[in-house]
């Protein structure tokens, strides 16, 4: 990632020095030791106070664990359910049934690919209307059969294509929002990477919101915000700070309930740690919600939404 470049350079230099035979050039040993200390220092400062824009970059890192990884690591007996029963099956949206530590749940998730081929099939994780309509179908199924919903957010946003407008992208999202608000089962959302606007929100609110430390959730992408405000996408660093889109921001705004810590440098540096964190956070959330009378869930979810927003003269 861009902000890691100084570290990358230093680490490169260190690696090439270590390649040499120190016994022949004893003065190198000191140089290596100094360089190692510098790398450690830079490591500390670089990751200690990540800017929002740096976190956005980590959230988008291609090696970051994805919905598929969580499905594989956290769940057993996964059954994918395909299709919207109307037009198509959108591979950018996962919908299915799965078991989390003995608990049977319905799972939704934006789905990025691990390679170019997969990414093309999955439209780089940006759903078409069919993806949202499939998700809506799963919401109704989960509601009918009393399955808690676990939703993984990782999308740059709903796809802004021509055919998507033709087939009612806006309506598909709106129907998802309405359906999700009314399900009589617990809904736990986990922001694992990108949380891009309406395309994330369509499966992205509920009774609990868990955010990974470097995941973001935003009303608009920092780049597009910068383009609109400054006609310059390169000012995304500035706008990403203004938009208050990090996990910590969301907690402060009262929108997120828990933050799962990531290893230094981002989840891809130690996926196992993050899987464990998400497993624990999901377990806690589902456990606390299992005690609630399900008939009251839509109402308390509504009250939760109802409180959001800041108003003067209210």
């Amino acid at each position, binding site marked *: 990632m861009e902000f890691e470049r100084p570290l990358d350079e230093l680490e490169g230099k260190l690696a090439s020095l270590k390649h040499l035979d120190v016994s022949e050039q004893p003065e190198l040993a000191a140089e290596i030791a100094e360089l190692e200390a510098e790398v450690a220092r830079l490591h500390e400062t670089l990751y200690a106070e990540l800017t929002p824009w740096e976190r956005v970059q980590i959230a988008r890192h291609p090696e970051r664990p994805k919905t598929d990884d969580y499905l594989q690591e956290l769940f057993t007996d996964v059954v994918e359910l395909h299709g919207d029963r109307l037009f198509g099956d959108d591979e950018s949206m996962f919908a299915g049934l799965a078991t989390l530590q003995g608990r049977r749940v319905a799972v939704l998730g934006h789905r990025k690919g691990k390679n170019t081929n997969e990414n093309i099939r999955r439209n780089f994780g940006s759903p078409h209307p069919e993806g949202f309509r499939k998700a809506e179908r799963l919401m109704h199924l989960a509601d009918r059969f009393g399955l808690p919903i676990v939703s993984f957010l990782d999308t740059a946003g*709903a*796809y*802004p*294509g*021509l055919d*998507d*407008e*033709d*087939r*009612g*992208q*806006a*309506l598909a*999202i*709106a*129907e998802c*929002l*309405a*359906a*999700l*608000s*009314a399900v009589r089962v617990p809904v736990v959302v986990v922001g694992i990477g990108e949380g891009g*606007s*309406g395309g994330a*929100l369509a499966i992205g*609110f509920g009774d609990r919101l868990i955010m990974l430390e470097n995941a973001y*959730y*935003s*009303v*608009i992408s920092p780049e*597009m*915000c*910068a383009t*609109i*405000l*400054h006609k310059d996408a390169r*000012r995304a660093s*500035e*706008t990403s700070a*203004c*938009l*208050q*889109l990090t996990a910590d*921001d*969301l907690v402060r*705004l009262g*929108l997120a309930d828990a933050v799962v810590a990531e290893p230094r440098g981002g989840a891809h540096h130690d996926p196992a740690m993050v899987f464990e964190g998400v497993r624990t956070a999901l377990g806690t959330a589902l456990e606390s919600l299992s005690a609630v009378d399900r008939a009251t869930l839509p109402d308390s*979810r*509504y009250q939760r*939404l*109802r409180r*959001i*927003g*800041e*108003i*003067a*003269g*209210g």
Partner: protein
Amino acid sequence: MPISDWFKAREQRKYTTPTEASTPSDVPDGVWVRCEGCKRTLYMGDLERELMVCPSCGRHHDLAAPERLALLVDEGTFEEVDAHLRSADPLEFTSGKVYSEQVTAAEERTGLNEAIVCGRAAIGGRRAIVGVMDFRFIGASMGSVVGEKVTRAFELALAERTPLVLVTASGGARMQEGMLSLMQMAKTAAAAARLASAGVPYVVVLTNPTMGGVTASFATLGDVLIAEPGALIGFAGPRLVEQTIRKSLPKGFQTSEFLLEHGMIDMVVDRRELKDRVALLLSYLAAGDE
């Protein structure tokens, strides 16, 4: 602001109403204007008599909230609610313009407190909760206040079991309120779902332009979706779509007529017939309660 103040405001030339031949503030000499559709020069009085619909090409020009109310509700029946709600600046957003200053400027320019005006009214003699958006107010984007007022309108309609009529116009979510703005989509959609499950009618009039987060939430959840002719309605902005597909857009893309053809709205209604049509629809949808 109660409706009486609007008429005062209009006298102060902050508003025009298309029902009277007045001289709106943004027309220099007040007599001739150029139609944005056919580029013909029109006498403002003629345009206003036609409710700002060009008599030559049918172009529906944008209306301010008071103008919209004047043509939609029965005269003297509108009682505003939640007029006191004003936008805070929760993020202290300063990239580009300072948000709080933008709000103040919009208030002064429009005489409104926010981008939507809501209240009780009668339409063709039928009681309704009515909300109309005003694009002049920061592109009628939906921040906390718009979301809250829309939600309260749903709740009022539910509490009084009175049909809700919303006239939308919006550029989308108000990015200066960040995630608080995005979440208004979920909040208003949830309120719409509650009204729907209670069987209280909800009619939407989509006007030019209705885009982004508003189209993707409460604006398309109506029992009946009406659009004005030629209105731009969609999710993604046309320029973004064009960049995405790297082709030029087909003619009429994202217009009301395009949406009708693609099955997304119930009807396209000429503004001059809008009030009658809404009143007729309410007579059907409220039939069960009568």
